[in-house]
C-alpha cells in the first residue's frame, strides 16, 4: 500500500480509537497492529506528531500491573480535525464503492 495513504488511514484509526475513550500508547499500538500488517513501532512517531499538533494531550495514570501508563486523550481541536477527516474518508469510500460496484 502507498505509504502516504497508509499513514493517513492509520491516523484516522487512532482518532477513531480515541473518540469514545482514552487509551494508553501500547493499547493503541496493539489494537491497530491486530488489523494491519505494519511494524508496531511506526505508530509511536504518529502519536508524537499528533500530540505536537495539539490534537491529543497525555496524562499519567497508575495501573494495577506495572508502571504508570501514559494515556492519550483527544482535544477539542483533535475532535474537530477528526470530524473533517472522517467526512472526507466517508465521501472517498462511497466514491470508490460506487465505481467498484459497477454503478458508474
Amino acid at each position: 500500500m502507498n505509504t502516504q495513504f497508509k499513514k493517513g488511514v492509520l491516523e484516522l484509526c487512532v482518532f477513531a480509537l480515541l473518540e469514545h475513550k482514552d487509551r494508553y500508547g501500547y493499547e493503541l499500538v496493539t489494537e491497530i497492529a491486530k488489523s494491519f500488517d505494519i511494524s508496531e513501532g511506526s505508530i509511536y512517531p504518529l502519536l508524537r506528531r499528533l500530540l505536537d499538533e495539539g490534537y491529543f494531550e497525555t496524562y499519567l495514570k497508575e495501573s494495577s500491573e506495572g508502571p504508570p501508563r501514559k494515556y492519550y486523550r483527544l482535544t477539542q481541536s483533535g475532535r474537530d480535525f477528526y470530524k473533517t477527516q472522517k467526512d472526507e474518508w466517508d465521501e472517498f469510500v462511497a466514491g470508490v464503492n460506487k465505481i467498484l460496484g459497477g454503478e458508474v
Partner: protein
Amino acid sequence: MNKLEYLKKLNEGLNGFPPEVRKEIIADIREHFEMREIEGIPEKETALRLGDPKKLAKQFEVSTKIDKAKHTKSGKDITSAVISAAGTGLIGFFGVVLPSIIIYTLFVALLIASVCVAASGVVLLVFTLINVSHLVNIWSAVLILVSVGLVGLGILMVIGSVELFKLFKKGTLKTLEYIKKRG
C-alpha cells in the same frame, strides 16, 4: 536483539533531538517492551515486531520535520515553500508566487523607508548637537524634538512593517497548506 540493544540503537538514531524529547521517546518504547513482558512475549520478538530501530528513529525525525516547517520562524523556509508551490500549477503561481513576489518587494521597500526615516532623525540630532552653540535656544530645542520624533517614527514603522510581514507570512502558509491539501 534484546530490549537494551534496541533502545541503545534507537537512542543513537535520535541524536538530532533535544535530550528531553529523546528521553520521552525512549521511555515510550521502553514502556512498550515492559507491557509485552507482562504479556509474556520475549524481548526478541517485541523488537522484531517494532521494526528496525534505525528506521524508527528516522520516522520520528521525519514526522518532527513536517511540524518544524509548519511552525518555522525564518523567512528562508517560507521562501523555499513558496518556490515549491510554483510547481503546483496555475493556482500556485497566481495565488501564491506572484503575490508573494510583489508583497516581498513592497515589504523590503517599506523596511528601507522606515530605516531611512529613523536614520534621518539620528543625522538631524547629531547635526543639532554639533551646532548647538551657533543656534538660538528655541531652534535647537525644536530641532532636537523633531529629530527624536523622526527616530521614534522610524522605529515604529520598522515594527509595523515586520508585524505586517508576519501577518502576510501566516496567510501565505495557510494558502500553501490549502493548496497542498487540494493537490
